[in-house]
């Protein structure tokens, strides 16, 4: 800590103009009458306030503290009086508790400020600073002692001791990191598959169901072009981890609107299913503009063209929303005919240009 006594030196007036509410030192009659007036010189830099103003400040501060006293009681009373458990009651309770608490704190705060400014003296004290660095003598003493200690410990001249100590510490230091391995499984190829894959469900093709209601979708019922549905896999409606990759948007397009980017073999009667998970950082691309067929992600405004294989037309996303191959089952309900051909959602290091790989495979096979 600081190594000197708080020497008070000659007073210096900081500003000739008075701070509002503080008495002028010249006209001030002090707390103890004449004695203290002389005392102003005796304690330099401490200017006691005018007694009349101090008394006024005292009364104001007391009033503030009294308000706090009452508000504190009001707080406790509100806690007892106002129950919660319904939204309206909670609102009343919140208002009563918060209002009284605010008033109580405010009263105390204002009261103390009035006390400091009105009753306590105005200070203009001076204290010395010293350079932070220790003096040369201390420094050299510490240096010598350090060397002496190092020598006494033998660490400098006994390399065996030193090296084995370092060797001992290294694996021990790594141990906590090793322990963290079980925080999670390794990624492997998990990011490349979703629950839509029929293999994942023992060869069964999953039905597309409406998010929220869980209703399967009959292709014939979803026949008005321009419509949009948010769709999840049947049986996984509450599996958030599955939904984070498998959620779809289902759009009905007019045949003449469909452009080359869309894989028509994966559509059914003008119905196309795209991953709802944005390829930027994974927000659900939930906004759809019917007239332009633009799909917009509300997080960072990546915009995709639904008629052209959900190609990116604006924003930070670098890849189209993957398309899911869909068809109908024997009862006419929409089902997934397979998994996405490429990983859905945000890009990652091991992903590679999956789209190009798919294109090349299509060409060779």
């Amino acid at each position, binding site marked *: 800590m600081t190594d000197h006594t708080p020497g008070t030196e000659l007073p210096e007036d900081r500003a000739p103009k008075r701070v509002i509410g503080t008495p002028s030192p010249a006209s001030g009659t002090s707390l103890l009458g004449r004695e203290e007036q002389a005392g102003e010189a005796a304690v330099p830099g401490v200017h006691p306030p005018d007694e009349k103003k101090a008394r006024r400040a005292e009364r104001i501060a007391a009033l503030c503290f009294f308000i706090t006293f009452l508000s504190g009681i009001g707080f406790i009373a509100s806690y007892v009086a106002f129950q919660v458990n319904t939204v309206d009651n909670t609102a009343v309770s919140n208002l009563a508790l918060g209002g009284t608490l605010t008033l109580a704190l405010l009263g105390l705060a204002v009261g103390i400020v009035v006390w400091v400014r009105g009753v306590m003296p105005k200070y203009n004290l001076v204290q010395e600073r010293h350079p932070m660095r220790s003096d040369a003598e201390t420094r050299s003493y510490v240096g010598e002692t350090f060397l002496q200690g190092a020598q006494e410990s033998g660490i400098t001249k006994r390399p065996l001791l030193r090296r084995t100590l370092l060797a001992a510490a290294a694996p021990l230091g790594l141990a906590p990191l090793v322990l963290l391995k079980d925080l999670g499984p390794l990624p492997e190829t998990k990011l490349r598959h979703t629950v839509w894959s029929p293999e994942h469900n023992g060869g069964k093709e999953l039905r597309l169901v409406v998010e929220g209601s869980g209703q399967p979708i009959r292709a014939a019922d979803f026949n008005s072009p321009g419509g949009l549905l948010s769709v999840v896999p049947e049986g996984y409606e509450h599996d958030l981890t599955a939904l984070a990759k498998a959620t779809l948007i289902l759009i009905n397009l007019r045949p003449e609107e469909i452009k080359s980017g869309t894989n028509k073999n994966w559509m059914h009667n003008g119905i196309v299913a795209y991953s709802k998970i944005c390829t*930027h950082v994974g927000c659900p691309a939930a906004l759809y503009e019917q007239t332009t067929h633009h799909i917009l992600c509300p997080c960072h405004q990546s915009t995709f063209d639904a008629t052209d294989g959900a190609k990116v037309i604006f924003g930070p996303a670098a890849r189209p929303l993957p398309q899911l191959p869909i068809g109908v089952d024997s009862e006419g309900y929409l089902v997934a005919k397979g998994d996405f051909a490429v990983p859905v959602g945000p*890009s990652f*290091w091991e992903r590679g240009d999956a789209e190009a790989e798919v294109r090349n495979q299509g060409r060779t096979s």
Partner: protein
Amino acid sequence: MSTPTAVPKPIAGTSGWLDDRLGAGNFLKRNMRKIFPDHWSFLLGEIALYSFIILLLTGTFLTFWFKPSMGHVIYDGPYEPLKGVMVSEAYASSLHISFEVRGGLLMRQIHHWAALLFIAGMMVHMLRVFFTGAYRKPRELNWIIGVLLLSLALFEGLTGYSLPDDLLSGAGLRITQGVAISLPLVGTYISFFLFGGEYPGEDVISRFYTLHILLIPGILVALVTAHMILMWVQKHTQMPGKGRTEQNVVGAPFYPAFMAKAGAYFLFTFAVLAGLGTFAQINPIWLFGPYTPADISAGSQPDFYMGFLEGSLRIMPAWEINVLGYTIPLSVIIPALVPLGIVMTGLALYPFLERWITGDNREHHIADRPRNNPVRTSIGMAGITFYGVLWLLGANDEISANFQISLYATTWFGRIAIFVLPAIAYVVTYRMCLGLQRKDADIIGHGVESGVIQRLPHGEFIEVHVPPAEDIEAHMRGKEAIPMIDGAEASETDGVPPRGLRGPVGRLRARMSQAYGGEKIPLDAGHGNGHGDGHGEHHAAIGSGTGDDKSLTH
């Protein structure tokens, strides 16, 4: 009224008992009357400190009921619209705190408001320290601690914000995961280890909870303590003024004045936060609904301190590189890491860069007025503009919706403004600083207008100027020339530069030192001309009152 002449017995007894065991008297002798200088801007850091204390208090209250679990439950509380909906335990318990615990909603809202004020307080405090050069020797370590505190506070905010597991916080978490997984080489592993497998999994809330209530606050408490101790030991900087030197500190004593004022300030902060918690709704999670990765609301906005990251993600063009079968998603990595890196690293290194450029190895205890170090102030303003553009663009959808501007136009504005506006801010600030310096030099040189009009014998009317008030003059004269490294000028003239300033780095250093240092507008240059930036100035003597001051018309 009576004046006690001896310390009352109970106090004397207790303190005597303690002193016998701790020797605390020596400490108190040195520190009870420790002097604290006075300036409104010195209170900004206190806002952050007190908000932090309130965060600890309200946060502890919240932990008594919060259940950090992602296990599914059917909501069966008093909030009708969600009855029967499957939600996580974390979300259900957050609703329980809000609607079924008396004072729970109040504490939740105060906690959230306090978090915002904590970070806002740190930011303005840091700007004050930056612009007044209060980070200079011997305070560099405390500055670094401050940068660490701010970085950790952002992370603390992120982890806390995610805990209620509502739809809005989930969107933030999803973006966080999208950023984490985009990191080259380690991204997928980080994501899988953080979430215990695939996103969102069932572990992240409980893990964030541990980070949020134990690990990060523990480090924060330690760093805040270190920050306070260093401030105490090194003593606070003071503004230039009458009687204030580099060797003293002028102000009010800790006991009783500063102590009481600080206490009152804590209560003010608490009162404001309690008022906000009462009257200003924040984060109404019941309106957002429980999290599902399949849904999002339009216009989702993070807490303000995350806005700049959001903005940088939004204005980034879609760059993605595929090399040798691996993907580098630049459209995520660059906006997530570069602005944050520039701001935080730049802040951390600034004291050392400045010292390298000025060669200034002295201790500084008198704060600079921002105008008196134009380059620093301009860099700071450019930084604020850089941050501000990103922050603004983090809400470009709201701007677009409210002001009927095309969404893509706002994005394009951001892409250009992020480079152009900081440069403009730099130039404008630099000119303003010099202008303000000229005004100071003018007041020192010519005095201030007295309001007295005098008619000279030959008929000319002049306004009499009088010397400025003592304290104002002392405040202005606190200015001193910014040091330059020795021989920096030699490298520009014919002289041979000293050893350290040869070679490309040395020459750059010399040139930067010359631009950064020196006296641009000397205070007492009433009679000189041709200095600094090349503008000649012709001051008349005090009281001559010719009234046509050329220096103001530059």
